[in-house]
């Protein structure tokens, strides 16, 4: 009887130990995946800030040449307001929409600059356009890295048996991909001669 109890307790102990190790391991994996999404998201925010700063410089440098382009001005202003509100709300969905709006406004701005020979001939403008292209590429890489991290996370919380631990620890909500509502990538179209 005593021997049976010892064996029973030993088996229970092993089960509890293995269960604890598995639970801790699954929890840590979920935390790592969640943190990676947050890290990649922070990378995008840094790039968005840098892009807004470059847009400000471009608008300031272009100055009076853009006065008659009220539509482009309005697009930039609206996109900036949308971005500021999105940062304040902290909502990724709002940030994605603001990013898409800014990209659209920037595409229009770049087209205006390219179509205005007085502007495209200014060295400062050319340099800013070059910097903008580099920044936009960094942003594109950041979005791609973020989406990879989201794909890993979303797949992870749906896979068995991790789905059990995900629900247990509150990781059941999938993260949004950084793309437009129709799933298309957000892109800025650079003029051919930029």
């Amino acid at each position, binding site marked *: 009887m005593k021997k049976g109890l010892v064996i029973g307790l030993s088996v229970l102990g092993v089960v509890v130990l293995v269960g604890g190790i598995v639970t801790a391991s699954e929890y840590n994996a979920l935390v790592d995946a969640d943190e990676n999404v947050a890290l990649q998201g922070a*990378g995008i925010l840094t790039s968005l800030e840098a892009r807004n700063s470059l847009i400000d410089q471009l608008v300031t440098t272009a100055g009076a040449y853009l006065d008659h382009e009220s539509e482009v001005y309005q697009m930039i202003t609206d996109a900036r307001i949308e971005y500021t509100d999105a940062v304040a709300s902290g909502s990724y969905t709002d940030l994605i929409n603001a990013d898409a709006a800014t990209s659209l406004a920037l595409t229009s701005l770049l087209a205006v600059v390219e179509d205005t020979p007085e502007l495209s001939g200014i060295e400062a403008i050319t*340099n800013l356009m*070059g*910097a903008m*292209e*580099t920044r936009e*590429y*960094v*942003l*594109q*890489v*950041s979005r791609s*890295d973020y989406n990879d991290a989201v794909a890993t996370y979303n797949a992870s919380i749906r896979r068995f048996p991790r789905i059990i631990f995900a629900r247990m620890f509150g990781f059941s909500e999938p993260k949004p991909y950084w793309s437009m509502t129709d799933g298309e990538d957000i892109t800025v179209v650079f003029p051919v*001669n*930029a």
Partner: protein
Amino acid sequence: MLKLISRAIVLVGCFVLLIIFGIRSCGSHVYPRPSSAYYVSDFAEVLDPATENFIISTADTLYEDTKNIDEIGGTQIVFATFLVENNAEIANYDKNTLFREWEIGKNDMGVLVIFFFTKTVIDDLDYYDLKQMQVETGYHMTPYLTDIELNTIYSDTLNYYLPAGTLTYPYDEALDMGVGSMMNELLNVAYGEIYLQPDNVVPQSEFDPWYQDYILDYSGSTSTGANSPMDVFTFFFAGFGSLSDKILFGVFGMLFMLAGGFSFAKGGGGSSGGGGLFKRR
């Protein structure tokens, strides 16, 4: 009989695994492997071997000198040239993906310079048009080599010797002067601004006349093996590839090491986030 069957099963299993790993490793890479020289992959075959040798030797020295500086990491500077049909084809190349596949720099301290050429035949002679230069910098290299600094280096070196719109041909001195001069400026940033070793900095005014003589003396010298991708075995033996690839090729690698061993120039494991420069011409 049973023993024979089980042996056959093991053999067939190993063969199938070999094929699976082979297919997996081929599929996981989008771009050509770097050349066996690693620091120069002149797939367009436009650089003089003298320039290739200069880049390979100085880049290797820089990496060997810096790879053990843990607080910064080892800098690797890699040049690649590609021949394209037209401007549109350049869009098929993604500098960030190439950088990550070649794992340039230790602790993300890498620099990848890519030149895209188109070829034109005039009077039976091959002329090359440098259409675009792209630079990708590793995560930790980007603060040292900003797009503004890279733009200045480009203007003072490559564009100075080979102005935009100028056709070149294989082993053209103008192209080699521009590329060599650019390499020297990148080395100056590394030694002067990153590792704070001013003794290793060579001012451009001293370098260029020396390099002109160097090219004249060594032009057309021995090929460096920079014109074609490294073979598959060397690629994995040099440390690239996935974990499963490494396990498979590691077995062969161990055998080679036990037989005496040899070393390859290889990537330091670096990654990048898109920093650098695009320069259309």
